[in-house]
């Protein structure tokens, strides 16, 4: 973990063991709530709305990288009152 709202995990897995990690992530996305981090420093995410998904694969010099990136905008609580449109 680096900055305040930052979580980072690095490990080495095999095909079998990596699935646990991916499942934990997908389960969190599915229920719209995912918590990451240490007990005293939890990062709580609420994926919702439009989720940008990027899947990238790269093969170079015998090394392969598969990157899955999910991004979204957090809803601004103030948004709702920002603009009132009256329809007569």
């Amino acid at each position, binding site marked *: *973990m680096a900055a305040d709202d930052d*979580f980072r*995990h*690095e*490990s*080495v*897995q*095999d095909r079998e*063991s990596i699935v*646990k*990690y991916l*499942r*934990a*992530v997908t*389960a*969190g996305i599915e229920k719209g709530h*995912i*918590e*990451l*981090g*240490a*007990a005293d420093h939890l990062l709580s995410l609420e994926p919702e709305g439009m989720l940008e998904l990027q899947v990238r694969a790269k093969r170079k*010099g*015998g090394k392969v990288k598969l990157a899955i990136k999910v991004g979204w905008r957090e809803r601004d609580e103030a948004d709702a009152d920002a603009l009132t449109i009256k329809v007569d």
Partner: protein
Amino acid sequence: MTTSSEAIAVTGVRENFKFLILEVTKLLEDTQRVLVDPRPEVIAKIAARDDYVDNLKSMIENKCFRLLTNEELDVGTVDLIRAINTATNNLERIADFGVNIVGQLGYLAELEVLHGFDPDPFFATIFEALRMVEAALFRRDMSKALQICRAELEVDELYAAVFKRIMDDLRHGDTPEDLVTTLFIYRYLERTGDSLLNIGEAAIFATVGEKLKVSEFQALEETLANSEVELDLSEVDFEGIWETRSGSRIGMVHPQKGGRSVVFKEGRTKKVVEEKEALERWEQLEPGLPPRIFGFHDHGPKASLLLEFLRGDTFQRIMLDTDARVCGTAFNMVTKTIERVWTRTLEAVPCRPNFMRQVSSRLPDVFKVHPEFRSPATRIDDLHIAPFEDLLREARGLDAELVAPFRVLIHGDFNTDNLILNLPQRRVHLIDLHRSRPFDYLQDVSVFIVSNYRLNVFDAGPRRRLDAVSKAFFRFAQGFARAHGDASFEARLALGLARSLLTSTRFVMDPEFSASMMLRSRYLLERLLGYRAEVRAKAGLGEGPLTPERWADFHLDESTLVP
């Protein structure tokens, strides 16, 4: 090693240096005289001489530094210039001590106390040493250099006697002030001895080319004298004294007239004796496999060995520098030798390698170098990731379960650069055997594999050969395990690898590379603990330990052996 370029470069300095020695000697002669009879005109002469000494020193220093910027000088000349500079500084210091002595005379109420002591033996020793300085340096006369060093011992002994007498007199006498001043005066003579030692050591440095403490030099001399090798120190070139991680020092001795080179090792007596005993044991097992011992010399807390210098390349060099064919030949030579040793020394005595206990003892050093390895408990939603230290603590229990069914004579530090191969003669040699003992062979197997892993080599060719060797060595060991009913081979090797990967990180500063080794180690431990939990659950074993047979299905994938 006097070359013509050296002759030209050094001639100018040598003239100044001669004058410096002369001036320092005269200054001390005057000092000696003043101690008997402090005549003001002599004291004034001493002050003037000291100014001249300072000037000579700056002159020599300037010339030395200017010479050192000349890139064409050979190593021998550069070493000589450095030694001249060191000697010059110490000569100037000796002159200062003379001035200091004279300064002390002003504090004496009367000369009577001072005259109760005899400074002449001090001066005689110092003058004799000063007479040898030029030859010791410029003619690289080793025996003169050593004599200069020994002057310090003589002065120390003289000083010890004076010191004792002054202490006695202080207890009984009634002139404490003059006694203390006298002590100060003799203390300056004692420090003159220390400076002479520095000069002697600098002269040795100019001759043997490496910084060598006199004690080490004497060890080498005595070891040579007690050895089968008929060499005199005046006939050898000394190369590359370097410090090893274990704190011993190693150097190479080459006879100037050709002939056999030898390796000189000096270290703590216990270590050196251990190595000697291990070498004898291996020699008995297979003559010629370890280097031959030519000499051994025990000098109290330190001891030294003179060993055969083995011709050939380390296996590591061969993997890095040759091609697949040569590397394959070398690999076969290595495994044939190792298999022979394992088979011949195998004893059906179960052996617990205690890999995790080995980790524990080195863990403080690992965390000191890599504090970032301490990780807090984290989670990814419901998936809990234990702190690294908790995982290590849990893994300690594995030691009791992962026991080898037999033991063999292991190398004990089986890095690939401790294997010397003489390819033309098809000979394999093992070096650095001081940790050799009957033990679990997987200690050596894991160290061997990790010594390839941790090489920071990522060029495709060499990396491929390193990886191929690691995998082939794994299969070789696996064959031996199967032939000898070692059911827990793969699990135990996983633990051995986890140990070596983690403990090796204390020598790896690259953050990315060290992290990858730590993560690999962590992966292996998680696999082992996961496997155990699974087997326990299936067999309803509760918290009980697994027998070696129950570990038999643990599979170690070859991809875990390489970066």
